[in-house]
């Protein structure tokens, strides 16, 4: 199959294929069934697979995520949808204290083949309580993996890989990506789920990002190119583990590091990226790395301020221009 698809459609297809192939896969979450999913990701599956395998839940995040953990312990492959990542704060005990720790605490007796999907990020005027980013929190948890696809192709394959994996995987979907389009080609051999990908080759600086902001970085790179600044853009695709080799290789020829994240800057995901690469490539770096990140404020409702609170294309360009390039 080779077709243009929306990001949500790619996810929908991945779920459909996984459920068709493996009866141990089931979905649960608020309004995933009869209603078809807030962002349409589970559309059609309730009618096709029935209410037991596509289960509408009450508003009980900690418990239905924990339900997924319990079911995974006995060999099911639950895909839990937390309607949006904002409600994941209520389910962190299930994710951190159960899913991530049981395999270890049990001395390896149990695996947790669980996927927890969460739409998230700053969307459009959803205000402070509905604009949570949680990358940093989840990255710090040993025992989890985190996938952050930015394209329909990755959305499809990484979700299939996540469902096949025996480890608990957090699957972060950006709310503003659902209606982006791209080619879904199921014949292309997918990269391993945790491998980063160079989305644009360049020689002057390395821009590292993930999820929706990869698209903004690519736009920025095109404009920078017109100014003679040739940026390499890396899409991490996975925040845990991070494919450091791909990043370090890039720095070997660019010598400049720019990290772009939507997370609040202070102790955000970018801090680990910068620190690790500084530790590893200190003498490769010509200048101090730069972060372009979310502001350290709760997200304002006002549309202009909301936009100002997270990196825009212009911010990325401005940051890239702060490096001194050899002329």
């Amino acid at each position, binding site marked *: 199959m080779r077709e243009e698809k929306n990001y949500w459609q790619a996810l929908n297809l991945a779920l459909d294929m996984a459920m068709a192939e493996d009866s141990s896969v089931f979905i649960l979450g*608020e*309004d995933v069934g*009869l*209603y078809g999913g*807030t962002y349409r990701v589970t559309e059609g599956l*309730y*009618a096709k697979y029935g209410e037991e395998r596509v289960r*509408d*839940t*009450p*508003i*009980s995040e*900690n*418990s239905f995520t924990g339900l997924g953990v319990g079911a995974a312990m006995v060999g099911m492959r639950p895909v839990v949808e937390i309607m949006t990542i*904002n*409600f994941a*704060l*209520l389910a962190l005990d299930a994710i951190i204290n159960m899913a991530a720790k049981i395999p270890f605490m049990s001395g390896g007796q149990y695996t947790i083949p669980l996927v927890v999907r969460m739409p998230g990020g700053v969307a*459009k*005027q*959803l*205000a*402070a*309580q*509905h604009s949570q980013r949680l990358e940093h929190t989840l990255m710090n948890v040993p025992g989890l993996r985190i996938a952050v696809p930015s394209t329909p192709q990755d959305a499809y394959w990484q979700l299939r890989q996540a469902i096949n994996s025996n480890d608990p995987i957090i699957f972060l979907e950006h709310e503003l990506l659902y209606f982006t389009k791209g080619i879904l080609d199921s014949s292309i051999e997918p990269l391993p789920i945790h491998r980063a990908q160079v989305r644009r080759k360049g020689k002057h600086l390395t821009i590292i990002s993930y999820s929706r902001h990869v698209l903004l970085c690519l736009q920025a790179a095109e404009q920078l190119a017109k100014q003679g600044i040739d940026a390499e853009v890396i899409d991490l695709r996975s925040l845990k583990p991070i494919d450091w080799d791909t990043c370090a290789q890039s720095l070997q020829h660019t010598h400049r590091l720019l990290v772009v994240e939507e997370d609040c800057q202070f102790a955000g995901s970018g801090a680990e990226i910068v620190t690790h690469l500084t530790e590893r490539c200190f003498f490769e770096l010509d200048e101090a790395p730069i972060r372009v990140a979310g*502001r*350290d*404020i*709760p997200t*304002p*409702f*006002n*549309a*202009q*301020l909301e936009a*100002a609170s997270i990196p825009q294309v212009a911010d990325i360009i401005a940051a890239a221009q702060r490096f001194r390039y050899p002329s």
Partner: protein
Amino acid sequence: MEREQIHKMLRDMLRARAFEERAAEEYSKGNFTGFLHLYPGEEAVAVGVIHAAEPSDYIVTTYREHVHALVRGTPSKAIMAELFGRRDGVCKGMGGSMHLFDAERRFMGGYAIVGETYPIAIGVGYAVMLRKLPEAVICFFGDGAVNQGTFHESLNMAALWRLPVLFVCENNHYQIGTEIHRHSAVTDVYKRAAAYNIPAEKINGMDVLTVNRTTQRLLKQIRSGGGPYLLELETYRFRGHSMADPGTYRPAVEVHSFTTQDPISIAAHEIELNYPTTDQIAEVGPDCITLLTQHAQEKGQLIEQELALMKDDIAKEIDAAVDFALQSPQPTLEECLDDFNINQRTEILI
């Protein structure tokens, strides 16, 4: 009930409906975006309950709270400006539709994470208890919110410590697209209060007079140390869950009759796709505004002219609110960083 009181309530219900329908219109025009949860159909709840509250009582609400603020006395223009995200909004454009706060009126906020109203309410109640004041806290929540763990935790503490909280369930039978029989093993919410020894009752949330009378009695009891109480109000929302939701999961037959959905007989394909407007529903179903209007007219407490005048006043008020919102400036990033962001405020770092 007094004529004057009936007029006040009717006026507030009409204002509420007009405000919400206009908010929908402004949203559709693109004057703001985000999640917009509207209240048409449920007006008798907010109006009946809040008209029973003293200015010294506190109110804690959810994201579906424009009407609660309006009835509490927050000027319509300050609410509309907040929906527009403007500087003259009641929260200076920082909160928006789901987060109206009005400290002056003890309006403790709209919370958008389902189940947050309980802990806030018992916290305010705890303060009242410590201060030994004759004040009550009104805590609103939906039928879907009953299954959040905080309901259980907070009601237990409210009962243990006899906190002055009136828990008000706005039971509109739906948690977005999930009908109550599909989200709750016990669908009479008031019965669940027994697990905490909290007295409770269910009444018709479409009848504003009963809602108001009952609430008055309960608040009096609570203010004088009677401990917490749970009041379940049966109601129905005429629109979808939010502007993003056409509400198509509700069969037309239900929408027209407000009966609860029979989970067995409803299959996805039976769902009626042409979702009616607020007016269409109000015409066929039991509508709280129609009910009160008829009642008042029958008792001779309302004449046609008065009603027309009211509607006229309201239309002008709402127009003015929109004008005000449109003319209000955008808040600036500096204001936002300096005034509201504690990480920038170092002076208190004693």
